[in-house]
């Protein structure tokens, strides 16, 4: 079970800040980021890609979006 990072409801720049802090302590593997708006989704993806991570599955469920991010 991958670790889930819930940044729903947080305003800028916190979604990116929280996710970057989390991947700083994770060398590789998979994480799931939970966001609740398109802007946070775009910002998180832009930030993790600049850190050498890539985006796996992006899945909307109602108001929430699950982004799987991974690094080998």
């Amino acid at each position, binding site marked *: 079970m991958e670790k889930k990072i819930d940044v729903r*409801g947080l*305003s*800028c*720049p916190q979604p990116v*800040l*929280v996710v970057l*802090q989390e991947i700083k302590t994770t060398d590789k593997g998979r994480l799931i980021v939970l966001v609740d708006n*398109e*802007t946070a989704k775009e910002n998180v993806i832009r930030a993790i890609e600049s850190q050498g991570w890539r985006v796996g599955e992006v899945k909307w469920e109602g*108001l929430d979006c699950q982004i799987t991010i991974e690094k080998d």
Partner: protein
Amino acid sequence: MNKNYFSTRWGIISVGAIIGILAPILQKLGNPANMGICVACFERDIAGALGLHRAAPVQYLRPEIIGFVLGSLLAAYLFKEFRARAGSAPIVRFLLGFFAMIGALVFLGCPWRTLLRLAGGDGNAILGLLGLIFGVGIGTLFFKHGYSLGRSQPTYPVVGWILPLIMIGFLALRIIFPPVEGQEINGVLFYSLKGPGSMYAPLTLSLFISVIIGFLAQRSRFCTMGAFRDLLLFRQTHLLSGVVALLVAAFIVNVVLGQFHPGFQNQPIAHTIGLWNFAGMALAGLAFALAGGCPGRQLFLAGEGDGDAAIFVLGMIIGAAFSHNFGLASSPQGIGPHGVGGVIIGLVVCFFIGFTMRSKTR
């Protein structure tokens, strides 16, 4: 996988450039000099039009503010991004909006106008811009130490509709009580007979252009404060490229339209007191950073259903009223009699908020 063109690098650059072209055109159409768009000044003019303050030269119900919110609302609905949400320390956001406005009116402009003043040749805006960056920089330090206003919660759609409905109400007032030549009051609205409040582009053009900008800004997440915040916090230049595009485009258009006049003295609606140009914008930048968006961005967020951003906007409008009633706002003659006190109190309040609202979970 990313279908939103406007959230790409070229997307944000084109939006910045479009705003940079349209703002000086709004000046040509009648808006005040170096003030094609100024969110702080225009909200201040709205406060004046409603009689919340009675500073005679700055009373006009600016349609641009209305258009920004409604353009964003339109984009949010078309792209299914409207999300009614609220509850992230609303009273603190009100206060941040309030003091952001006080800081902005000591400088005489929001971050957008800072760029437009620079693009028009106003050298006094250099210290304003540096102050803005300095204030945003302090804000990033608070974020690094766990500052957070907490999470918002999804809520009834109508919560997200309140500010757009208020804007529609304002528009109705502007249509019912239009400006009348030589008349300071029509019905419930106040108008300026001279000064910046008496200078405005035709209603339909202002509305049309601002709806386009609101629409594009919602799609691109354009944010002038975020541009510097992301650079300082993440070394990211995405939003900054939009800001640079705005500055370059506005400069070119100003040169073409004969609106570029370099210098420090006698710049339109500006004063030359460098320290307070810097300090005013430092306060504004800090407050914008702590609230998560520049004043334009707060309007666009409010348009897509963010009830907390809407509270920030109302805080700015009330802040403008206090600014003029209490003699905090500057004028071309210099800073207001109590401007220094206003900035100091604002900085104390922002530091208090920054130090005390830290999430223990991080």
